[in-house]
């Protein structure tokens, strides 16, 4: 069965440096949102997460910026990767962003701070270490679901 590979064939592939760049920009935006307690800025980042999760990272503003400005200077990538893991991470970010935006704009403020902090941790780990927190949590979520008694 060594011919059976999980996750293939790939639905779409992307330049892996794009999501890494996007994570770096996201880290800065989230850090500024947190330090200034800005609901509108977090709302804007949440919209970026939504575009990345729903349409794909190529159409996210940071992805467009990467392709327009950085990619022509860097040259073609050595390798391409499956779009689904980083896109899943955008969906996780979207969840945090929605909660945080509600916290800042409607209340309670602690919810805004906590959710923004969670998203910041994930974005920073991705930007600095290439570590995909959402992807790690995915298997744990699957395991929890599998632990429910109604599932064979």
């Amino acid at each position, binding site marked *: 069965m060594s011919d059976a590979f999980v996750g293939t064939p790939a639905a779409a592939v992307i330049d892996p440096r794009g999501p890494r760049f996007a994570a770096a920009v996201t880290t800065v935006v989230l850090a500024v949102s947190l330090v200034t307690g800005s609901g509108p800025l977090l709302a804007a980042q949440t919209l970026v997460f939504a575009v990345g999760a729903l349409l794909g990272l190529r159409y996210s503003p940071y992805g467009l910026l990467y392709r327009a400005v950085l990619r022509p200077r860097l040259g073609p990538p050595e390798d391409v990767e499956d779009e689904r893991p980083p896109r899943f991470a955008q969906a996780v970010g979207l969840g945090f962003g929605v909660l945080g935006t509600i916290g800042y704009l409607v209340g309670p403020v602690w919810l805004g701070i906590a959710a923004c*902090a969670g998203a910041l941790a994930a974005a*920073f*780990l991705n930007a600095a270490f290439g570590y995909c927190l959402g*992807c790690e949590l995915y298997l*744990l979520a699957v*395991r929890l679901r599998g632990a429910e008694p109604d599932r064979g």
Partner: protein
Amino acid sequence: MVDPAGLVVCAAVLTAAGLFGTVRAAHDGRLRRRRADAGRFLSATELGGHLGERVTLVQFSTALCSSCPAARRLLRELAAATPGAAHVEIDAEARPDLVGRLDILRTPTVLVLDRHGRIVRRASGPQRRTEVVAAIEVAAAG
């Protein structure tokens, strides 16, 4: 306009994440013998494939795992270059039985089996060529 609470939380999050990432990066891909794996075997039937004649590299993956494809390429290449070696990739989502029994917490997790299917080494996260080569030698000698 600075929110003092937000500033403190921001500094704490970046510090904690930096420490976590550094420790994690040091441990990722280190193929070690785990006490919990002592006496654990995997059969060809459980793997849904066949065991290598000398060594089997078992990789647990998910479709939403960012470092699984690179691990797959490395393990495939090393298995192909080693006589009597096989690479078996398992979809962790499809095999909750194995994931539960073997305490698989993240993907990729790689188990190195000897010719009897005994688990001799285990690592998770991005895989390192030198670590895998060394573990293959240990398993093939066993």
